[in-house]
């Protein structure tokens, strides 16, 4: 069964319409930049200094108060949205796999961004950057993006988000929103990679996904040979009830850690189980963004 079938495309269109009608593009695009410039939306006044463009002098104010003040406008610009998609082998775990789910989510968000005239780029990573879909604009590029995503395979050993972020920030590109779609199972910790993005004035949005069997591992009690699908290493262990309880506690702590980290730095954060449909997740994200505004 293809990952992106016609049904998927219909859902993308639907999500795009919803994002325009209900949230008026508030999710990603049409973001006001912090720069003031030649926009049409009034921002504030400042004193006139020689050399300023007379066209922006507020003559009404001058007439009333005999003061030369210059009108300032907020400049609007299109947003750059970067997707960092985790393709490590751990993402291939689960039914449906986290990787499939992540690709669907990335495709959906990218489609909405393209529909809002934003620019998007996709960077695929595992222990390092594996593949790139270059910065592009316009809805017409969606099929190319889908083809790119469809051709991807889960690969690579231990996830190394720091190395990936380092490679990403050293690129000559405009700042923008960085959507990190990953399970965040980085042996060295996901925080350092996100920190790098943050410090370089990117706006990271974390979409962390997990499988239901990762949260509640079945059939693990007793003597088992535990096989790490990411590294390929096997380990013989005896899992007791106590161990299982500890695991669940650690997993919950990890999830809470992700949320706390994002809250601390006011980063967008979406944690989800792959049991959820991708379109439901997008709607959930829209609702979260709406509530923020």
């Amino acid at each position: 069964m293809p990952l992106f079938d016609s049904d998927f495309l219909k859902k993308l269109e639907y999500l795009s319409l919803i994002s325009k009608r209900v949230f008026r593009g508030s999710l990603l695009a049409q973001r006001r930049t912090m720069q003031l410039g030649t926009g049409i939306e009034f921002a504030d006044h400042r004193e006139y200094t020689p050399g300023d463009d007379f066209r922006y002098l507020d003559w009404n104010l001058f007439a009333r108060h005999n003061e030369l003040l210059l009108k300032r406008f907020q400049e609007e610009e299109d947003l750059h949205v970067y997707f960092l998609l985790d393709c490590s082998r751990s993402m291939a775990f689960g039914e449906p796999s986290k990787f499939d789910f992540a690709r669907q989510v990335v495709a959906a968000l990218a489609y909405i961004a393209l529909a809002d005239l934003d620019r998007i780029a996709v960077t695929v990573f595992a222990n390092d950057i594996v593949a790139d879909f270059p910065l592009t604009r316009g809805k017409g590029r969606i099929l190319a993006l889908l083809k790119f995503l469809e051709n991807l395979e889960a690969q690579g050993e231990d996830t190394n988000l720091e190395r990936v972020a380092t490679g990403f920030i050293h690129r000559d590109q405009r700042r923008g929103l960085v959507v990190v779609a990953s399970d965040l199972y980085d042996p060295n910790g996901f925080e350092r990679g996100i920190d790098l993005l943050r410090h370089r004035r990117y706006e990271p949005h974390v979409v962390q996904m997990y499988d239901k069997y990762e949260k509640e591992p079945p059939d693990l009690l007793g003597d088992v040979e535990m096989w790490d699908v990411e590294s390929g290493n096997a380990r013989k262990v005896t899992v007791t009830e106590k161990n299982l309880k500890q695991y669940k506690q650690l997993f919950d702590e990890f999830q809470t850690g992700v949320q706390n980290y994002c809250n601390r730095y006011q980063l967008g954060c979406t944690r989800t189980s792959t049991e959820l449909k991708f379109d439901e997740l997008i709607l959930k994200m829209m609702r979260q963004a709406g509530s923020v505004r």
Partner: protein
Amino acid sequence: MFLTNVTALWWVLLAVPVVIFYILKIRLKRVPVSTVIFWRQIFDEKKPRSLWQKLRHLVSLFVQLLLLALLVAALAEPYFSWEATSKRRIILVLDNSAGMKSTETAPTRWDKAKEEAAAVVQGLRFRDEMAIVAAGTQPRVVCGLTGHQKTLRETIAALPATDGPGKLADAIAVARRLVSREQAEGESRIVVVTDAAGPDLAKVLAEEEKKPEAERAKLTIIKVGAPAPNVGITQFQVRRSTVDPIGYEILVEIVNASDADSPEFRFELTLNDDRPIDVVPLKLKPGETWTKTNNYTTADGGQLKGRLTVKGEKGSEPLADALAADNTALALLPSREKLPVHLHAPGGNHFLTKVLEANSLVLLTLSKKELPKEFPAGSIKVFHRETPAKLPPGNVIVVDPQNDTDLWKLGNKIPLAIVTKQEKDSPFLLHVRLDNVILPDARQIAFTPAAGKPALLAASLQNEPLVSLIERPEGKVLVLTVDLDRSELPFRTAFPILVMNALGVFSGASGELREALATGATADVNLPAGEFVLKAPDGSTRALPKGPIQTTVGPFDAVGIWSIVGDKPVEEFAVNLMNKTESDLRPDESVPTIASAQDAGLVGGFGGRPVWWYLTIAAFALAALEWYLYQRRWIS
């Protein structure tokens, strides 16, 4: 240490599949996980001790093999050498008397007694032997000395409780004889399993106390049951009325064998279940005995039943006390047939006519003038004064003969004869007292050789026969040389009784009343030609000797109607408990008893139990330990 069942060691082969399964088990199940980040934290932070880690699987195998070894050892039934050398001889006396059917100990005392007996059997050690003596109704050895436990168990299981009286003293005497016969080596012990009711045990123990120490039997008394209140019929007898030929006197005795007042109940007396005779509401005080004699008249006969009942929702319901056997009592009343009697009395005799007419069984014909040439078939002929020269065949009564016959010649009158001698054992004179009865003008009589040697039933001071019995091949002749008109005999009650007895004897055995028997009793019977069986109330039969023969049947060990059956029923017996000792379900507290075979130390060989029992317990404990360790994942 030896093994009883060496072949059980073949079960050790089960170790092979255990090891195979163990080997299969250590090929662990492979479980994919998306990351080991969390597991690493769990396992690397608290590393298991490496030695234990290595041994964990081996310990698991060891525990399983140990479990198997324990079970196999238990199946092999090991025993110690001292168990083999110290042979025990146990004579088990089982009280299967009526009181053991008491239901205050569920389901019954007898079932509990069998449980205890089975426990003693189960505790027999190697080379131990046991015999079983039943003490109910009639003591008997139901299983000789043997060490074969299956035989002993089957004997106990098949031994029924009886409704008979307990004969513990006799049974213990039998057990003593068995012990002394086999007094070769080892320990001998008599184990009595009983409800300890009745005085027998106390007497036995008292007698044992008197004996020298060396001669005393090792007596262990295991008591089953608890004191239970009981109301029971302890007497139920019927006899013929002495004044009414179809009348009966019914004696009933009911006892409240309890330390408390009895509940309200009724005594119901019925004939053939459909003819009520008497209903008496009763409530007896502790230990009270209630007695009553009922009079009843019937010529039909049938089954007379006395029952203790309570008033239920739908009429009478049986009294629900601990013992049911004594709540019902039976008696058999024979049906009475009409007896043809011809009275020839020239001019008539008022006394004879009336006494015969008063007997409701008599079918009387009279002749007052000439002697009839023929008499009714099978009739008893009564001649007053005028007697044929040759007496007719059949049974004849002659009163005050005035002429000679072929059997006697008359002599002079005795002016004032007084009865001084009386044959008390004669059935003709049953309940008849003729002492000092004055008989004026009685006739002397001399019997001819044709009369043989007549029996002198009553005689005067001069030994003159006053009442004589001549036995002819063609019939009996009872001769009364008494002038009824001048004698005081007709005014005495002895006269109708004498006539009734004579008619009864002449009519033969038909209508004979056989008294109700108590359980444990026997009865003498004359069996006609043929083959017969004794049929018990439950339908089971016992073979009897081939007739014709006079034999003894019984002892009867169940209440109800017993019958001797051949081609047709020959005779029936009503059997009732009628035993105050068995109806009293309170144990004799003065007798030292032990509550169970376990407490008596008879159940096991090592520390009270056989070795295999401990091995089985150890196996279960080990299984529980393994389960616990497995659940904790200390072993796999």
